[in-house]
């Protein structure tokens, strides 16, 4: 059973969506470590180290995700987590922007998968299974 860390990054307090993500991932057999809202990069990283997580799912709904996610990959590498897959989704940028652009920017920042607003979590679950070879 793979462990994944999920949480809402930065000064974001949207507490409902992350519970749904937790519920669905559990249903699919993942060991879910939900660190909740108002979580810093450090919280995600520390949780992933102690629980030996294979993936980190970052959720952000308030528009400042791009700032909050800056250097997350580098910080993971610094903490010995280069092998951990990074996922991000929600309203992750300010205003309405072309998603292709947004996706590219986040991929450049080191995220493995980037999801636009309104993505069905089941879709992401399939990707996680594929990436972690549990399909």
């Amino acid at each position: 059973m793979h462990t994944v860390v999920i949480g809402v990054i930065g000064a974001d307090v949207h507490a409902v969506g992350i519970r749904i993500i937790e519920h669905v991932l559990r249903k699919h057999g993942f060991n879910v470590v939900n660190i909740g809202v108002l979580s810093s990069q450090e919280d995600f990283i520390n949780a992933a180290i102690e629980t030996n997580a294979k993936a980190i799912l970052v959720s952000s709904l308030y528009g400042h995700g791009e700032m909050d996610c800056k250097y997350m990959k580098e910080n993971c590498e610094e903490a010995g987590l280069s092998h951990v897959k990074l996922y991000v989704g929600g309203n992750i940028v300010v205003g309405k922007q072309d998603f292709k652009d947004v996706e590219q920017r986040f991929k450049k920042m080191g995220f493995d998968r980037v999801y636009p607003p309104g993505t069905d979590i089941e879709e992401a679950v399939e990707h996680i299974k594929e990436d972690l070879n549990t399909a």
Partner: protein
Amino acid sequence: MSVHLLVDFGSTYTKLTAVDTEKEVIVGTSRAMTTVRTDVLEGFDMALEKLQKAHPDMGEITTISACSSAAGGLKMAAIGLVEELTAEAAKRACLGAGALVNHVFSHHLSKKEIKTLKQADVDIILLAGGTDGGNKECILHNAKKLAEAKLGIPIIVAGNKDAADEIDELFEKSEEEYYIVDNVMPKLKKLNVAPAKDVIRRIFITKIIEGKGIKKAEEKIGEIIMPTPEAVLQAAELLSKGHEEVEGYGDMMVIDIGGATTDVHTIGEGSPKRTEVILKGLQEPFAKRTVEGDLGVRYSANALLSLVKPYEFKKYYENGDEEATDEDIEEAMQRRHDNVDYLPENDQEKAFDKALARICCDYSMSRHVGTVEVVYTPLGNMYYQTGKDLTEIQYVVGTGGVLINNADAKQILKEVLHKSHKKLELRPKDSEFLIDELYILSAMGLLGQKHPRLALKLLKRHLK
């Protein structure tokens, strides 16, 4: 008449408290210098003689229980993976068991750290790392390093259960003394210190006592059941929770200002008091103890100077006392450090001692209580709380020589309260102060093991 004698082998004094369990009263207390270098029983006999002389009709002593912090108390090293998580959980388990923790290591142990452990004066090592089912690579690495180092120190393993079997084999081969117990942090941020604490106490009773030269006392007085700080913590817990239908005092705090350390114990959840506050960090133990090795009024007095500059020092004098003193602060601190039995002789020296006690109160409180931090979110201000919210603590109990023998003890204790320039610290706001005038807290912690109802009654009667 049946007397239960409670003994506390302290680093300086051996203290006795005699309790008549039928009449339900404290018959008397006495103390003598602790004599670990020769025979610890010499000091005990001396104190007992004093007690019997003062109370010739005391009656027969039927039971004796003892605790000890002699010869430096119980010294432990804590090892974990992430500094703020399993390393911190391991440290809290040690502190809760009454130990002094001078060494905390996180991540992979290096050669240098192993060397530090070899040279350090450590009685027990607590090894943690990883949640259950989480990281096991780190704790395995550290177990291997410890096995290779052959430190000859008992090791308690309280980490990821998935690694337990491999560690078991490892230590079995190396012939180290080891104990495997439940994880101190089985799930992320969930604290589980009781199993580790139990083993710490067991090792303390069977092994540590011997090394400290106190084992000898057992032949005469029976088992030494726990380290003194744990006895104090247990007394506080009893007084807070009550016993059966007898109500306790609710959430409370004990502050023990000693010559070398200042201990703070709090009993209570300390959870956020407002809805817009979000709790961060590792779960807090219900009965929490912190120890400040650099805050003390004698042995550690000169260490205070690295915290408080001479010009700040004056702030800790009572109004008016400032003019009364023209002491050279450094010299006055050094004198107390060099001579731990030092007693103030005049008003000026007394005022200086009070100022030292105030500094210990203030700084130990800053380090013990939780803090809040404002986060500005699009939905308005939210707050992070790290640690315990102690704003609604009802009682603060003061103990330790400098407070007990001081007419102004309650004045000094005010230093723990909320301060306008330390707004983010969740200190008590409006507490009542009680002083452990007879110095019986640890004794009542011991008595409470067998007679909780009586211990509670005596605590309520004598803490004033």
